[in-house]
């Protein structure tokens, strides 16, 4: 197994800060915008960005976690492991008329995001939905979904894995490309 680091240290922080600046450019003071992290790994990114934005703007930003398990199109198609278990959803507000920014760590096939767009409708009709991802695995989409904000773009093949580590859970901020040796 070969691991190569795609991003870590100060560069990781710069990327996060750039994403925040881009968000402020489009959403101003976030008075009508909410941030939704997709469970499980997107919630770390969302928390990280919310923290940074609140520091920059000096106001609090409405945010929540969304679990998409019940909206997946591959429920029951994962072999014999049984159904996929859900994580918690914590959204204590209605998104009706608000701008929603969905956040996930890695965008790969696009199917998770499709499920998330389905799931978020249960909380009202958003004025607009945008997508922010830390890693965009290019040329691997199975449905036509593209992000509005991208941390880094990666060209990878299907057998490779992209893993994002967070200070909060893994003691470091880094993005790693894992290649299984044959």
């Amino acid at each position, binding site marked *: 197994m070969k691991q190569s680091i795609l991003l870590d240290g100060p560069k990781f922080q710069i990327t996060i800060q750039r994403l925040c600046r881009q968000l402020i450019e489009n959403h101003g003071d976030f008075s009508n915008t909410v941030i939704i992290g997709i*469970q*499980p*790994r997107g919630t770390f990114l969302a928390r990280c960005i919310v923290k940074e934005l609140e520091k920059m703007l000096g106001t609090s930003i409405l945010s929540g976690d969304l*679990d998409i*398990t*019940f*909206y*997946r199109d591959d*429920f*029951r198609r*994962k072999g*014999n*492991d*049984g*159904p*996929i*278990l*859900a*994580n*918690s*959803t914590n959204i204590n507000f*209605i998104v009706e008329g608000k701008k929603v920014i969905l956040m996930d760590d890695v965008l790969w096939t696009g199917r*998770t995001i499709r499920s998330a767009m*389905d*799931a978020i*409708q*249960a*909380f*009202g009709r958003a004025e607009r939905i945008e997508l922010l991802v830390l890693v965009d695995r290019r040329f691997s989409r199975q449905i036509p979904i593209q992000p509005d904000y991208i941390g880094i773009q990666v060209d990878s093949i299907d057998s490779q894995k992209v893993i994002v580590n967070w200070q909060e859970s893994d003691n470091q901020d880094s993005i790693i490309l894992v290649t299984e040796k044959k």
Partner: protein
Amino acid sequence: MSSTAEQLSTRHLLGIKDLNESDIQLILNTASNFKEVLNRPIKKVPSLRDITIANVFFENSTRTRLSFELAEKRLSADIVNFAASSSSVSKGETLIDTVNNILAMKVDMIVMRHPYAGAGVFLSKHVNAQIVNAGDGAHEHPTQALLDSFSIRERFGDVAGRKVAIIGDITHSRVALSNILCLQKQGAEVMVCGPTTLIPKYITSLGVKVEHDLMKALNWCDVANMLRIQLERQDIAYFPSLREYSMLYGLNKTLLDSLDKEITIMHPGPINRGVEITSDVADSAHSIILDQVENGVAVRMAVLYLLAGQRG
């Protein structure tokens, strides 16, 4: 992407007897997720949109049937309802034939209530569909026991170590047996209380305490689960009169106030007000009867979701 996948150890839900402790935890944890879904403006998820479920009821039901039907609809399953009273069963069709005819119309799961104990087990051996037992005679009513445990967990944080008294007609109650098994598997202590005639002779072999004095039972327990007198299953008289039963085993406000602690009151419904429980108790803050009904939908969604997940 979610990565954890776990599954139930059984393909059907025929009784609590077939479940192990981790099955029960899996169902209750999944039910918490569905309870959150039920509090959204749009209470529906598409998980079971390719599944067809038949609700086959050979016995009357209000709560369980509505609850299953809502759970199925909230999961986007297609459903067909079948009540024995208005069907060809009255023309002499057998259970297997009836169900096989339903299955021939491409139905994936059967939710069945039947007046005979073991009907679900019998069916599961003879037809090719997943069976969910919604009550079989005086045997088991697994989803009721699961939602009772879910409600206790919600109230106390944990079922383990709780003292639960099941009070009333134990002999004719499927809720009692399922609850005893379900609570014990999670580490709770269980006591049954009622007149000698309504407590099965060998119930102690299940490891439950037996008490005939209501006051003693109430003083012992954290939770009192009051059961209805099942007159429809009683072919002989088990006690002199309903009035006498009510005086000895009916729960009222005076009794509750005389305890030196607060206990939680549960009832699987339907309530016979003034018999096993008075209105001022049933409607008091001690009572979680309506929470039980609310939780019923979430728990049944969890059961259907987890069983459907086992299909290839």
